[in-house]
């Protein structure tokens, strides 16, 4: 009897132990896989490690992995989420934002985090001598930005004029320590810069004081370190990825994507249309050294719309990007869930309608060639940057499409500095094809494009006063959306801007490329999205499988 009872108890203990072990293994599965080194490439040398001076992709990646921010835009849902700030409140006039900070947080060197650090960061960010592009986004009017420390965990930041979408701008502001002797090396993000070999690599190590924990109470991040190799050659990057030396490729072009998808379907990720767009435009600058009759074509909305209608965007998406792109609608990609004007549709391919539209402007066909009212053959050049294969291919396809209307297009590829000089200083070009790499969801990020006085108002920049009524209307609407904190009113204004852009076609939008990336099977927890950084936006929760951890 005793024997039986003892045996029974031992059996129960064994079952209990097994249950506990299995519970531990399943509930803390990510934690159990913690450790190891994640590896991927930066495409260029980081220009700075100062988080407030970042304006290149590589530095941006490092800032994302090392910097702690008050609020973070979730790269999947596009919603704002609390980080170092528990909560925040924007005043009704849009001039002030108050943050309630988390307590008990420390920088990587052990210095405590408080509202003094936020004040220090904002003061440094807004210092005109720093020339910070991140700080430029906060300049809403004449006058200084001030901070008011209410308590060690409460701070208010006051701006001289209303700033629309204010809270979202703090996603880009990595908080620096006001007291740490290590300055920018003391960080609040999941990793810290441990080693930098110029031209070779950057090694990031786990921040031992990182504040975030997983649902089981384990301190994040799971990884021990991240090795970022500086590698500009994409062929080499792909070869190393295939050999298992790299775990992620953040941005892939469609050719590489298809090859990878063919050989290893599980590793290639297409997250759908990104925020990036490719487009072309005509030179409408009054002082540009182009013939007057050509300027008249380019300034005609009918001509621009006809060109837009004559371009087969479906073919561009299918042929140039192997289907990994969507015909573009306008200045906002459909991927931008809140700001996209869903009433608008991509211009469909209608060469007959395009020809009719041109005929209303006095254009006519003669022996297969198109002539204007004055008898001038319709011929123009499209400049684009050399080395961008997709853009060169698109230009060749546009050349063929417009050739069907009797329009002769000469495609010219130029090195990037020469191209920029032509389109922004000398205005010595006829049409140009380029792309926007849009990282900002908010329309304020496009102010420098749509305001007629802006330098990047590509088709006719730096106008003293709007030269056309529709540009004047866009100016008014963009300023209106920027001067109110009411999201509904802002949306109405920007929707109208998108409608005017579709009617007037100052930019002929071509495609929105899909966000393509590659993630090795060694990585667990990756969920690639369309917003940068596509593959490692949740780096703190990424893990590596056992064999990879063992090999590194």
């Amino acid at each position, binding site marked *: 009897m005793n024997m039986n009872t003892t045996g029974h108890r031992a059996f129960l203990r064994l079952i209990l132990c097994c249950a506990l072990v299995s519970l531990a293994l399943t509930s803390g599965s990510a934690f159990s896989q913690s450790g190891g080194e994640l590896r991927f490439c930066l495409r260029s040398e980081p220009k700075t490690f100062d988080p407030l001076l970042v304006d290149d992709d590589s530095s941006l990646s490092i800032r994302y992995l090392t910097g702690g921010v008050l609020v973070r835009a979730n790269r999947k849902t596009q919603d704002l989420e609390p980080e170092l700030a528990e909560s925040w409140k924007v005043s009704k006039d849009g001039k002030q934002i108050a943050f309630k900070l988390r307590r008990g947080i420390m920088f990587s060197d052990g210095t405590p985090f408080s509202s003094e650090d936020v004040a220090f960061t904002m003061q440094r960010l807004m210092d005109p001598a720093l020339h910070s592009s991140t700080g430029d986004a906060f300049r809403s009017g004449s006058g200084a930005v001030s901070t008011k420390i209410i308590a060690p965990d409460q701070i208010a930041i006051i701006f001289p004029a209303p700033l629309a979408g204010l809270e979202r701008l703090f996603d880009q502001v990595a908080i620096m320590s006001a007291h740490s002797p290590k300055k920018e090396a003391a960080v609040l993000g999941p990793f810290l810069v441990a080693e930098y070999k110029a031209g070779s690599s950057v090694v990031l190590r786990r921040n031992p004081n990182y504040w975030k924990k997983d649902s089981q109470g384990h301190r994040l991040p799971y990884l021990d370190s991240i090795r970022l190799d500086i590698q500009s050659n994409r062929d080499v990057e792909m070869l190393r990825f295939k050999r298992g030396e790299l775990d992620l490729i953040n941005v892939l072009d469609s050719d590489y994507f298809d090859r990878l998808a063919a050989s290893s379907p599980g590793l290639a990720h297409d997250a759908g249309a990104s925020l990036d767009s490719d487009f072309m435009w005509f030179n409408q600058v009054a002082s540009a050294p182009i013939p007057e009759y050509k300027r008249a074509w380019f300034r005609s909305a009918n001509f621009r719309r006809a060109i837009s209608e004559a371009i087969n965007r479906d073919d561009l998406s299918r042929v140039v990007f192997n289907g990994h792109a969507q015909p573009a609608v306008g200045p906002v990609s459909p991927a931008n869930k809140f700001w996209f004007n869903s009433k608008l549709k991509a211009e469909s391919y209608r060469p007959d309608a395009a020809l009719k539209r041109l005929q209303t402007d006095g254009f006519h066909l003669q022996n297969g060639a198109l002539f204007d009212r004055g008898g001038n053959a319709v011929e123009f050049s499209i400049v684009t940057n050399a080395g961008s294969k997709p853009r060169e291919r698109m230009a060749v396809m546009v050349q*063929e499409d417009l050739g069907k209307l009797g329009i002769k297009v000469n495609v010219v590829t*130029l*090195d990037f500095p020469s191209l920029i000089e032509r389109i922004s200083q000398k205005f010595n070009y006829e049409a140009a094809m380029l792309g926007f790499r849009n990282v900002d969801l908010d329309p304020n990020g496009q102010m420098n494009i749509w305001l007629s006085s802006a330098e990047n108002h590509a088709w006719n920049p730096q106008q003293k006063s709007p030269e056309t009524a529709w540009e004047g209307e866009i100016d008014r609407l963009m300023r209106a959306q920027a001067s109110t904190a009411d999201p509904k009113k802002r949306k109405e204004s920007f929707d109208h801007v998108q409608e005017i852009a579709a009617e007037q076609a100052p930019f002929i939008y071509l495609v929105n490329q899909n966000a393509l990336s590659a993630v090795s099977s060694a990585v667990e927890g990756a969920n690639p999205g369309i917003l940068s950084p596509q593959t490692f936006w949740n780096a703190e929760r990424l893990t590596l499988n056992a064999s990879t951890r063992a090999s590194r």
Partner: protein
Amino acid sequence: MQRERMNAARKLACVVVVAVCAVSLGANWLAPAGYSKQFRDAPSAPPSHQHLLGTDEVGRDRFARVLYGTRISLLLAPAAALVSTVLAALVGGLAGYLGGIWLRLARGFTDLFLSLPWLFLLITVRALLPLNVSPLVSVLITFLILGLLGWAASARVLSTSADALRNSDFVLQARASGLHGPRLFLVHVLPNLKPVLYAQFWISIPVFILSEANLGILGLGVAEPLPSWGSLLRELEGLISFREEPWRLVPLLLLIVVLTSFQLLLSNEEVTA
């Protein structure tokens, strides 16, 4: 025996060159679709009955593009090489023949020419040229630029050879016989420089073909949709595995075969200057 083998190789090379020229001249009949028509339903297609070498990334027939590209490069790369060799002969040959201060001046000038930052100068050249030029004019401009800029290295070689000839016994004997000036240069020096000139000419052709591909990056290459060997070679960029698409190597193989054939067509003495 070796001579017979050499003759056979030359015959084969002659056949190859004639065949390539004939095929490229017959491109209109052999590839009626033309080099610019885009078969958009079949981009990057493998070889088929309709497209013998498949299609490129925008669906253009590769076979047609190779034929038309061969026609352009075979005509214009040698023309550019001829221009540069003539310039090199004039500068280097004459300076070597005249010797003394002329030789030092010419060497200094060629050294200066070779050390110029050509990338920036070519960007300036591009800035001076109009954007709206037809593809055919762009071809002429491209190879003219190559011809006018590619003479300096050859001129250095030629000046050294001419300098050596100037002091050779037969030239001294000719001088002693009363032969001077241009006649001495044309009758005795220039014919003896011929092997070097030939070698420089043939060396320049592949260099110019590849340079043309690189000039495309500066907007100075052959403009789309016109093909050239240079633009066809640029398409090999990013090709990870040749085994997957071996037909894409055809332009490269054609370049190697044609240039080797040209080399074989020269006599052994001419090549080894």
